[in-house]
């Protein structure tokens, strides 16, 4: 008996794992590493996504703590788009806001990142300051109280820019352009606070550009502007694409709409309709959510399709 075990030890048969070749092992471990995320994707993302679509086609009921629906076709969608007088208006509003905000956001983020990049005194200090917008963007530090109607004494701002506004409006530039400009300037607080992540992305994109490229450009006698157009812009163009996707998604997710005199976030509007107590509204709310999501996806798809044509990949 002893002898037999000894021989068995001498020639151990390799386990199935050890017999596998390296590329297969890599694939196996790739799936294992991805497993938590895959479970999440299937159960907490794809299934809810499909369910949302299903709810939106149903009239919902709550039975015994469980949702159940009866299929009613596209009635909910018809109701949202056709009967509800506000939804399409809100959707259009968030679209126009997005179209106004995102380009300015990207431009400002690139501009700030370029200023922050490079060697100068106090660099660490300024870089630290410009990450604070990420905290501000969460909306904790900037608030508007619903109850409080401020008296005119405080709304009269310390930095009154009315004269500048008048100057721009009366300068003879087309009115659409000036009004856009004025909105940008008035919203600069909001835009700066929403572009923290983009600044971070651009900063790292700029750091990744090899300094030798700039040296060559200098030797060849490029002006600063040419250097920007021929080197900086193409090299950060992949980052621009990423920032666009992020900005558009964020802009939709935090879209605000005007209800009467006050503003409200789009998502809280949908939430208030969905959870107003009666389960019949669940299907209706799901249809709203689904249209909202489809609009985001289509916009991102179209914009990316156009922009990615101009993106330059170095390697």
């Amino acid at each position, binding site marked *: 008996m002893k002898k037999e075990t000894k021989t068995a030890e001498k020639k151990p048969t390799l386990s199935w794992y050890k017999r596998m070749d390296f590329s297969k092992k890599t694939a196996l471990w790739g799936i294992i590493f991805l497993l938590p995320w895959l479970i999440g994707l299937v159960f907490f993302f794809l299934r809810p996504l499909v369910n949302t679509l299903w709810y939106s086609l149903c009239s919902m009921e709550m039975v015994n703590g469980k949702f159940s629906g009866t299929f009613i076709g596209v009635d909910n969608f018809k109701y949202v788009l056709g009967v509800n007088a506000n939804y399409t208006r809100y959707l259009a509003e968030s679209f126009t806001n997005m179209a106004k905000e995102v380009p300015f956001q990207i431009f400002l983020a690139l501009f700030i990142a370029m200023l922050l990049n490079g060697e100068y005194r106090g660099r660490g200090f300024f870089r630290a300051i410009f*990450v604070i917008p990420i905290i*501000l963007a969460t909306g904790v530090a900037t608030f508007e109280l619903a109850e409080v109607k401020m008296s005119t004494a405080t709304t009269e701002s310390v930095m009154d820019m009315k004269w500048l506004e008048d100057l721009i409006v009366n300068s003879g530039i087309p009115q659409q352009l000036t009004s856009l400009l004025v909105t940008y300037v008035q919203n600069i607080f909001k835009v700066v606070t929403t572009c923290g992540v983009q600044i971070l992305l*651009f900063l790292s994109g700029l750091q990744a550009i090899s300094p030798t490229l700039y040296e060559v450009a200098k030797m060849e006698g490029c002006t600063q502007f040419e250097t920007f157009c021929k080197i900086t812009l193409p090299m950060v163009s992949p980052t621009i*694409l990423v920032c666009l996707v992020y900005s558009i998604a964020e802009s939709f997710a935090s879209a605000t709409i005007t209800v009467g005199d006050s503003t409200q976030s789009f*998502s809280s509007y949908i939430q208030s309709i969905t959870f107003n107590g009666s389960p019949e509204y669940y299907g209706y709310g799901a249809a709203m959510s689904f249209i909202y999501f489809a609009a985001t996806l289509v916009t991102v798809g179209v914009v990316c399709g156009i922009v990615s044509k101009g993106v330059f990949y170095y390697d």
Partner: protein
Amino acid sequence: MTKLSRKERMQKAEEMAGISFWVDLRKGRLSKYTIQKKVKSFIASLFRYVILICLGFVVITPIWNLAKDAFTDPAMLGDKSSSWIPLKTSGIFMEMAASKSLMEYGKSLVYTLLTTLVLTFLQVLSTGLAAYSFARLKFKGSNILFFFVILTIVVPSDSLMLAQYAVFRNFDIFGLIGLIKGNGVGINMIGQPVAQFILAGTGMGVKSGLYIYFMRQGVRGLPISVEEAAHVDGAGFLRTFFSIVVPSMSGSILTVSVLSFLWNYTDTYYTGLLNPSVNQLAYRYSSLQANVRWGIDSAAKTNAEWLTRINPSNPFVQTSIISACALLVVLPLLVMYCFVQKRFVQGAARSGLGGD
């Protein structure tokens, strides 16, 4: 300091003069182009500082305003002379905000920090593993799955609100739990932090898609030869990941951890949906914002001395109290940020967050 002879001093002065721009300029030793270049770079740096300081002001102002409102003495509220720096300061608003009926600060802070730390850990772990898989351990279909990462970034979490709520209202994977309990009904996880932990641990938490993207870029920036060497030396995949990859991408891990902490800390959406607990600071704050009047009244009941000093229906008082609450919410973040700031910004810049 050794005493120099006159000759040496002259030599040194000349040396100094030789490299000094102003001396050269005065003596007419500079070419036109050098002067031009110098002036240009001076203007450029002036321009840079002016813009950075202006935009920095824009960034700092909201936080400054919070602090200003929170520390103004009730008697000085609305006074023009206190619109930037309060003439008289007092801690009464902070005291009220931290009190039991408004923020219940001590208890809420501990609860929030603990849950946020767990969430951050789970999220960084799950997204890190996924990111490494996407960057290095390619398998068939891995690129298609990466498309779903982009999808999770793009789809607003609100649009899945109802369905995700339903999943956790009746939590039951594969129908197993219902089978064990025997009635086919799963666990109601609403109202417990577990639901959020599950989401974070499976890489579906707050902005997880973005973190996967960040870290994938971080891994791609590492030299692959080190990992190959580890494999050749007989390290398994887990060992390679935890003892080679994780230490060398600590920059991007730090960035993602800080972002994850920050966003989980201030997240009110998932908290409101899955775990509407008043102990979560940001959620408590956001619900307080809607009816601050009630909060002030009940605070005044517990301490009548406050009511003699403030008038709860005064809008300035309400603003000040809400500011104090907001400051209390942001304060831990700012303190944490002060500690990690230097490494965070450098790490972010080096981690190669940029595009492909």
